């Protein structure tokens, strides 16, 4: 707790971060602007947060924004640092963090394939990783309808038996 | 050498096939009981072989087909030379050297056809099989040379006859226990049982040389394995256990040796191929040298042990 508070205070003084919260014991989340992400990540890495655990994205379709999330982990005191930024949904472009964390290459490929966010500077992120021969919308966006796609591409079985629906009493006895 | 000899030879091959296949099935049941479960029926190995022979099979060219036939023919020819308790199809031709030499035909035939299939797993499996052959043959041949020097004969039926003059203490396993121990360890390697079955290795190299075989080729390979087991265990029984004055005694000794080998193999793990070669060149080779040394010093008359 002590070291976590120290890190949070340091970040609040040096950069402009908002909405810091700590929902679980050894984690803290905060949100920041797009242009500060690289410097904060580099700074945290030099303070001991050497492992990049995950890069993922959330689709806020009502606010018309994508949220990129970076999760870092410190092996010395076991603290997770979680960083969120917002991107514009109609033109999602960002710069890669490959120079800071070389392991981000596959995470950025993953996010590009499933959300459509482009990472400038990471040439390999445009190659498909999980999906083969996919030319529809990126699947994890909220305006992609998986049920319709599944019905169209993988046909289902037709049932010809009529099942009785008024025997058994679950829907009938209302009181 | 007339027709009777050939018919006797074919009879020996058929008898060996039926006996060994039933014994393999019974040993599968024994393995199952070791692992606290029921096993298959005792004739399951017959069903496996005949099922494999009724499937359609693919081919990769004539070397692929020819190698299997050459291996099977070579092993069947070797089997005709093994004496069973006085039954010899071709008298005078049951030399140890002939049998050990012809056993290599089986392995080489399989290597030839496996490399004809073009699969890289087969190439790895074949190189492992030939490397392990290099490992287990050397201590075995040293012990054999020592015994041939002592008894002044290399014929298997003479070996068997020389051990039947008397009670159990004339068996070579009692008189030369170190050599017998080395031969039994080599037998484990020759049969391809754990801990020395790295050339089959199903989960590691997708069963090695047998990776492209299916259908009739696989059935023939199973028959090959059964016949070569009979030759190798028969060799050890004749040289070390007295060979048996009657056929029943021979078969009883055979069953005991094979079952013990199988039970040992079910409780051990698998060695890697370099560990196997290093093992064979340390302890069994040293023991084989000690055995040879003992034979040479006691040759001039002294009796060290029995």
């Amino acid at each position: 707790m002590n070291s976590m508070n120290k890190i949070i205070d340091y970040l609040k003084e040096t950069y402009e971060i908002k909405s810091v919260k700590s929902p679980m014991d050894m984690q803290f989340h905060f949100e920041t602007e797009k242009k500060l992400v690289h410097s904060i990540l580099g700074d945290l890495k030099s303070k001991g947060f050497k492992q990049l655990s995950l890069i993922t994205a959330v689709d806020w379709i009502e606010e018309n924004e994508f949220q990129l999330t970076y999760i870092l982990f410190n092996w010395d005191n076991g603290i997770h640092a979680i960083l969120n930024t917002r991107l514009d949904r109609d033109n999602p472009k960002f710069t890669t963090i490959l120079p800071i964390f070389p392991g981000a290459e596959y995470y950025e490929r993953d996010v590009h394939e499933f959300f459509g966010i482009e990472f400038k500077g990471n040439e390999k992120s445009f190659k498909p990783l999980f999906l083969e021969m996919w030319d529809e919308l990126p699947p994890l966006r909220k305006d992609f309808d998986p049920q319709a796609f599944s019905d169209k591409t993988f046909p289902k079985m037709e049932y010809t038996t009529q099942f009785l629906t008024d025997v058994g009493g679950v829907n009938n006895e209302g009181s | 050498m007339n027709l009777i000899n050939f018919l006797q030879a074919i009879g020996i091959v058929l008898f060996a096939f039926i006996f060994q296949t039933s014994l393999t099935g019974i040993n599968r049941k024994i393995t199952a009981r070791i692992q606290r479960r029921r096993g298959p029926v005792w004739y399951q190995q017959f069903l496996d072989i005949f099922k494999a022979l009724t499937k359609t099979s693919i081919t990769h060219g004539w070397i692929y087909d020819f190698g299997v036939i050459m291996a099977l023919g070579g092993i069947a020819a070797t089997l005709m030379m093994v004496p069973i308790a006085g039954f010899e199809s071709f008298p005078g031709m049951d030399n140890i050297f002939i049998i050990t030499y012809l056993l290599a035909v089986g392995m080489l035939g399989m290597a030839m056809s496996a490399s004809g299939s073009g699969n890289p797993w087969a190439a790895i499996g074949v190189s492992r099989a030939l490397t392990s052959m290099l490992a287990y043959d050397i201590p075995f041949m040293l012990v054999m040379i020592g015994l041939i020097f002592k008894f002044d004969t290399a014929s298997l039926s003479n070996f068997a006859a020389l051990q039947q003059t008397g009670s159990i203490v004339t068996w070579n396993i009692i008189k030369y226990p170190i050599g017998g121990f080395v031969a039994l360890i080599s037998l484990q390697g020759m049969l391809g049982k754990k801990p020395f079955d790295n050339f089959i290795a199903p989960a590691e190299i997708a069963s090695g040389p047998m990776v492209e075989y299916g259908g009739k080729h696989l059935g023939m390979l199973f028959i090959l394995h059964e016949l070569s087991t009979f030759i190798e265990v028969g060799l050890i029984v004749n040289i070390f256990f007295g060979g048996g004055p009657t056929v029943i005694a021979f078969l009883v000794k055979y069953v005991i040796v094979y079952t013990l080998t199988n039970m040992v193999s079910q409780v051990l793990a698998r060695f890697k191929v370099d560990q196997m070669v290093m093992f064979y060149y340390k302890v069994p080779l040293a023991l084989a040298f000690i055995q040879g040394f003992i034979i040479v010093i006691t040759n001039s008359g002294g009796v060290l042990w029995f």
Partner: protein
Amino acid sequence: MVLNDKDMRSAWEKVENYFQGSSIWMKWYCTGCGAIELPPTLTSRFDMERLGMGPMATPRQADILLITGYLSFKTLRRVIYSYEQMQEPKYIVAFGSCTVNGGIYYDSYSVMNRLDFYLPVDLYIAGCMPRPEAILNGFKELKSMIKAGKAEGYKKYKENYEWYRKNQIHSLKEVYVKDEFHE
């Protein structure tokens, strides 16, 4: 009057079917989450070797391909390769409800819904996942089907190959495997 219920096999085929039904080698490769129920069926408690079945390492040596659970479209391309490499006679057993009608992944973008359109299935075993007792029951049923000469999935595949191929191309667009390792 059912005309095609008579046993039209020759004596040799009856003998062949007896041997093929008594010793079945399964391919040791299972696709979805149902593969977790196969090691208990194979080991000491629910012994599968009593039925004459055992695992073999490669598709060339195996008789039976088990589709255990869901089948994503990437795996389906590779399973079609494996199925066509197996040697006849060969059988497919489908485990679980995902192969019947999609199971709990009925609305997923990456999982196929009905296996019967792409590969011929001889026997379905219901459950999510079926327990080892159910699997043993299913295999006993498969053995009696093979011995009676009724497990003819591979013949159906050969005769209706265009229909199966059309369905495969419709869902997969291409059965040829293209990924990073094959470049």
